[in-house]
């Protein structure tokens, strides 16, 4: 039985690392092994929105948010192996991000592939949740709103 941790964080906050702090995905993101190093940029007034700006490619930036913004009950179980890879101590909670993308008029969140970050070391990994009830295109908002 592996240790599991519910990744809790203040409901809609994004991690505040400061723009000088580089988040590193040792193996990149799923299907994008070169996407390794990012700054997390947040703005004060945003509805819990952030941008992962690639350190190595000016043109590459991912929109992200706290998955609890999308689904307040969202939780991720981390295996012992993942906790070890991330360098998380026994009671230490990781920070979670989910990427946002647009499909037609829908903004969707990838809840099956969360980005999990060690808040102290900024070591990160993208998990893929197996047999999950979550989807890679969880609807969040409509881009075109009718008045």
């Amino acid at each position, binding site marked *: 039985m*592996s240790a599991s941790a519910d990744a809790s964080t203040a*409901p*809609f906050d994004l991690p505040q690392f400061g723009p000088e702090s580089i988040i590193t995905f040792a193996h990149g*993101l*799923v*299907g*994008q092994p070169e*996407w390794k190093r990012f700054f997390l940029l947040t703005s004060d007034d*945003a*509805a*819990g*929105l952030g*941008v992962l700006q690639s350190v190595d490619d000016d043109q*590459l*930036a*991912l*929109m*992200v*948010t706290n998955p609890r*913004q*999308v*689904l*307040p009950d969202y939780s991720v179980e981390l*295996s*012992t*192996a993942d906790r070890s*890879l991330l360098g998380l101590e026994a009671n230490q909670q990781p920070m979670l991000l989910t*990427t*946002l*993308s*647009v*499909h037609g008029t829908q*903004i*969707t969140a*990838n809840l*099956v*592939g969360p980005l999990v970050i060690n808040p102290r070391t900024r070591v990160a990994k*993208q998990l*893929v949740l*197996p047999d999950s009830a979550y*989807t*890679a*295109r969880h609807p*969040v*908002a*409509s*881009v075109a*709103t009718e*008045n």
Partner: protein
Amino acid sequence: MLVLTRKAEQTLHLGDDIRITVLGVDGDRVKLGIEAPRAISVLRHEVYLQVQAANTAAAIAAPDRQTIAAAMRGRQQPTDTRGVRA
């Protein structure tokens, strides 16, 4: 790609720590048993492709990020009991 043929109840060893066993074959479905350390993730390819696609789609140019930010601010918050703002 290494191509091997196995019958039901036959096993493959991958490295020292991984075994894959064909548990059964039923029509076009093959049941596989996988023994691997917890550190090895086992993913259906379809899910892998979905996450890869979501990553690619999340790489968004700045003007479109503004559009998304506006839509996200305008949406009803999960604990917001007011009506959606027009």
